């Protein structure tokens, strides 16, 4: 693991980038665009409530002035009633502003999450190969929450500014000189807080990354819990967790302690200022320049002022957390998907597939295919065989547009797949992955995943085709049995059957079968195979064969080796040819045989007596 500043695993992700504050702000403002009306209401009502609350001390001082003048009690009552009305209005204004503001912030965060989720789902698979799920989840959900929290600070900022102005105006009238002394502090306070900004941002980013790291770690240990248990490795797992958890502690502690210096330091600045005000103010009063109630109002007002002033000053360093959250989310949104998509909609796919001079690599400089050519006719069944790393799975993933190829072209019915609209295209391809993936949902909904409108009878039909429904009936709630996350508790074979049925319902024009290396017993496999053969009729089918028993009946076998076709033909032809395929086939069956096992057994006994 790479180390940075004494921390491990807290480096930036490949898609992270640095935005200028201006860029960030314009992005954030864009998010608020749909809420222009709410924003207007919030601003208006913040102004109104700030004015009402700001005017209260002023009105009170008027009442007290009247006391000094010993004026008519009716005037006093008049003032007092006005104060009460003003304050009640203030409550209403505050209510409207808070309610609208909160709704707006939650709305914005909701949109932000939705957008980000959408953008992430648009990424091609190479993205998910690189970035752990747990960290992406943390970024969308937790950083989204952080961002929301900071936005609320933003609306408070507006009200602070208003308070500042409203309270400052009467102060100027009382004494310009004292206000001048007061204003001296402002640039110092701002210079001071701005110096916190950079470090604060860095520490916030680290804090968020360490939370994402914890998230990813918990996710992985929960996903692998069974193996942890079986090997009784809870302790070592716990130690690894401790390391990450302790790091998160250190990172967050350092951020918290750093930020906790901010406000007490500002308080010290303010104390100095206040002492100055007392000194000058005291002298003014004793010299008769100002009256007692004037200086009282001035000092009282400046005390009221400190809160918004500190809020404005402290906003910037504290808002760094929101900005870094926004930056992390925007970076995720802006990461480029390499898959290009056209808008041509193929109505009904006949199923002709052409790979022309295809060039493809996962990692630069390590090509999987170079000038690869292959043509598959509509309705043809093709099996691809070859050693591990020959490029079998890559070929189908390119066809599915899960990865972008670098050169050459792939055409479906004569159209480049880059020009085709992805949704319709992928829906007309049935893909059966090597490891079946099920959703935490009912069996029925898992089967209808690719065809949500399918009826109950169709679901039963599909399951029948995929090897029978007996096992479903034996479950507690039949088709409505709820499958736990990833299909835990169902056997691997049962999961495969569901996936088969799912693809059957989808009724695809092209079928891609990445044959499972594991799981189904020979009897069930035979059943599936028979139904697959029925299903394959009239569709173009590509089988990535891991068991040579499947390939005997296909139209054409393509033997791949290191991204190149070394042989092609049907089973009989290739066997007669006695080349690569024949060798593969023979060794495969030899490996299934008793002699082979016995020979290995005796070999081992010889070497390790």
């Amino acid at each position: 693991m790479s180390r940075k500043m004494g921390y491990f695993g807290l480096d930036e992700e490949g898609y992270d980038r640095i935005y200028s504050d201006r860029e960030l702000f314009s992005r954030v403002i864009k998010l608020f665009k749909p809420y222009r009306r709410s924003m207007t209401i919030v601003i208006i009502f913040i102004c109104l409530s700030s004015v009402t609350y700001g005017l209260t001390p002023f009105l009170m001082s008027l009442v007290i002035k009247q006391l000094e003048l010993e004026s008519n009690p009716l005037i006093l009552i008049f003032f007092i009633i006005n104060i009460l009305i003003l304050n009640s209005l203030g409550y209403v204004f505050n209510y409207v502003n808070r309610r609208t503001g909160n709704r707006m912030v939650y709305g914005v965060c909701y949109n932000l999450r939705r957008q980000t989720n959408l953008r992430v789902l648009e990424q091609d698979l190479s993205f998910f190969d690189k970035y752990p799920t747990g960290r992406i989840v943390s970024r969308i959900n937790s950083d989204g929450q952080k961002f929301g929290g900071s936005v609320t600070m933003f609306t408070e900022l507006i009200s602070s500014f208003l308070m500042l102005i409203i309270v400052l105006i009467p102060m100027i009238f009382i004494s310009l000189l004292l206000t001048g002394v007061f204003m001296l502090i402002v640039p110092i306070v701002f210079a001071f807080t701005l110096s916190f900004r950079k470090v604060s941002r860095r520490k916030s980013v680290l804090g968020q990354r360490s939370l994402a790291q914890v998230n990813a770690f918990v996710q992985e240990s929960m996903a692998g819990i069974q193996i942890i248990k079986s090997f009784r490795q809870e302790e070592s797992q716990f130690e690894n967790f401790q390391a990450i958890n302790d790091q998160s502690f250190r990172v967050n502690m350092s951020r918290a302690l750093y930020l906790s210096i901010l406000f007490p330091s500002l308080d010290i600045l303010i104390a100095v200022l206040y002492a100055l005000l007392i000194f000058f103010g005291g002298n003014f009063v004793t010299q008769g320049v100002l009256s007692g109630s004037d200086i009282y109002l001035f000092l009282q007002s400046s005390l009221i002022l400190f809160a918004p002033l500190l809020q404005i000053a402290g906003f910037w360093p504290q808002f760094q957390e929101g900005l870094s959250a926004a930056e992390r989310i925007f970076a995720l949104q802006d990461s480029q998907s390499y898959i290009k998509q056209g808008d041509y909609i193929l109505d009904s796919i006949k199923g002709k597939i052409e790979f022309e001079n295809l060039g493809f690599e996962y990692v630069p400089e390590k090509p999987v295919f170079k000038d690869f050519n292959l043509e598959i006719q509509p309705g043809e069944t093709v099996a691809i065989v070859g050693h591990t790393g020959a490029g079998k799975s890559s070929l189908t993933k390119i066809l599915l547009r899960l990865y972008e190829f670098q050169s050459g072209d792939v055409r479906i019915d004569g159209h480049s797949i880059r020009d085709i609209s992805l949704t319709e295209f992928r829906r007309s391809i049935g893909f059966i992955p090597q490891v079946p993936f099920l959703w935490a949902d009912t069996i029925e909904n898992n089967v209808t995943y690719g065809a949500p409108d399918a009826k109950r009878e169709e679901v039963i039909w599909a399951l029948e085709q995929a090897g029978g429904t007996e096992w479903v009936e034996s479950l507690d709630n039949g088709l409505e049995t709820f499958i736990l996350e990833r299909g835990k508790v169902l056997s691997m074979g049962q999961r495969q059957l569901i996936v088969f049925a799912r693809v059957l319902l989808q009724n695809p024009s092209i079928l891609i079968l990445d044959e499972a290396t594991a799981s189904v017993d020979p009897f069930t496999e035979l059943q599936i195979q028979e139904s697959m053969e029925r299903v394959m009729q009239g569709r173009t089918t590509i089988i990535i064969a891991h068991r040579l028993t499947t390939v005997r009946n296909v139209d054409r076998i393509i033997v791949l080796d290191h991204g190149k076709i070394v042989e092609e033909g049907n089973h009989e032809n290739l066997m007669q040819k006695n080349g690569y395929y024949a060798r593969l086939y023979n060794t495969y069956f030899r490996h299934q045989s008793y002699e082979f096992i016995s020979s290995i057994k005796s070999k081992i006994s010889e070497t390790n007596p």
Partner: protein
Amino acid sequence: MKSQRLKSQSAILKNNSEFHLEEDDFLETRHKGVRSWILSHMFYRSNKYLMFIFFALIVFTSFFGSYIYIIIGKAIDVFSAGQSDQVVSYTFIVLFIGLGTPILGLLGRACREIVAQRIERDVRREFYLSLLGKSQSFHDRAPVGDTMARATNDVRFLNFLISPALAMILNAIINLIVPIYLIGSTYRLELMLIPIIFSIIFILYLRRFLRRLTPPTVSRRIAFGFMNTVLNESLSGIEVVKSMAQEEHSVEKYKDSAMSYRDAGIEQGDIQAKYLPLLLLSITVTLGLTIAVFYNRAGILSVGAVLGLVGLLLQLRFPVNASIRSFLMLQEAVVGAGRLLEIMNKKSEIFDSHDAVSKEIEGKVKFENVTFAYPGTQNKVLKKINFEVSAGQTVAIVGTTGSGKTTLTKLISRLYDIDDGRILIDGIDVRNFSLQSLRDQIAYIEQDIFIFSDSIFDNISFGRDSSEEQVISVAQEAQAHEFIENLPDQYNTEVGERGVQLSGGERQRIAIARAFLTDPKILILDDSSSSIDSETEERIQKAIFKILRGRTTFIITHRLSQIRWADLIIVLNQGEIVNQGTHEDLLKNSKEYQKIFIKRFDKTLDDLLGGD
């Protein structure tokens, strides 16, 4: 770094979970409920001193924060009286208090931050530990995304409870008391009634406020967990989502969860917006002003006193304003803690019995009338299973999909407890073994091998303190050394989620190497795979047969060759043993066995039956 506090063999087991450490300081309070649990964390070990300093300082600084108003009032009276010689001394008093308060405040803040971050760390540690101690049936049912949400976000709210919520609340209490006291002590006793009545209504309202906040807070936390679950699941299954072009479906699902999160947040906000004490405070202050005016007219209070009184009443806005946020945070923390305790207090179905034994296993395994249904379901996956294996034998388990093969093997290492019957190892019920000793001596090579995002080395050594030579040697035994040497960083190559993706055969050999290192007495091998890659295949077979030697082995396989090599073959059908015996017996006598194998190999059946 090895923790010495591991308690697995120890006899006193109050903590009934699969795994825990010797010291569990929160065991008792966890069961007493949210409040005492949170308190026990707050005052845990040295936290209590820090909390004490923090409390003391906050009382001190809040008091002086209020007291400065009195000083200013006095100063103005003095200045108005024309005593210019007092100006300097008042300047210094203000400076002294003004400087002293933040310096002490900084110390208090540091204390509270330390406690807050510690609580986050300790609670997360406690929660994670409890997750490790839960039985497999719990993990089968707990959505990973929701567990993640609890471990990160719900835990974090406990941090926020201390910093800043608790500080704000304490500050508020003091800011509520000090003006009341000062009004009474400086002006007139009966005037205290105004803020006292206000405070009583205020506190009563806060109780109601908390109660009303509970439902939306609970639903917001649940919604967050659900949002995490949905997102985590759709990203885990991204290949399926994409290949079936069902992005929209995923987006919709996520949208729904994000929407319920938003709605709960809005409901919280609406309750906060209605916060009545703001209005109440205005009424109180005007009332106070009115009364003060009357007193002034009656000649009881001076103008300066009216000013001071109103100033003190206005100070009540600090507790009023601070409580809107701090009480929501308090509620979030309580709800979050409840969600954590909900999981932590769930009893693990599996734990060491008080007289659990740790002993070396020889490897005799016996199933007696074993019946099993997955917890929470009725469907009996295994029914009255009976068989016996001597130490060192190899048992092949065959059967159609869903017949209970994998389940049967999971019961031996007690990943689940059976409903009826007994499983005996060397004549001892597995429930009487300590889990540590049982699982240490059983190795499991699963069907769908899980690789951790870690180096190859760590994936093989898997928590053991193994030397480089040991790891290389087991990798060689497992026929994995060669391909590992060809990886970019050899044994240090990062694999798993963000590293190099390993093929099925490579994963399998890593798992075999892992098993070699543990040198188990009983081995469970779920090997239904077959690779067409002849070289790989040969290597895997070599590795498998090497590891079988000298151990009791349960192998789930469909490879006739392996099956024929087994000492005993068990044929399962719908959870029942329909036949057991050797290959030749079964081929002749078992319809189920024939059904599984004959059809497929009809072409080569003669060769296979012939054996040679």
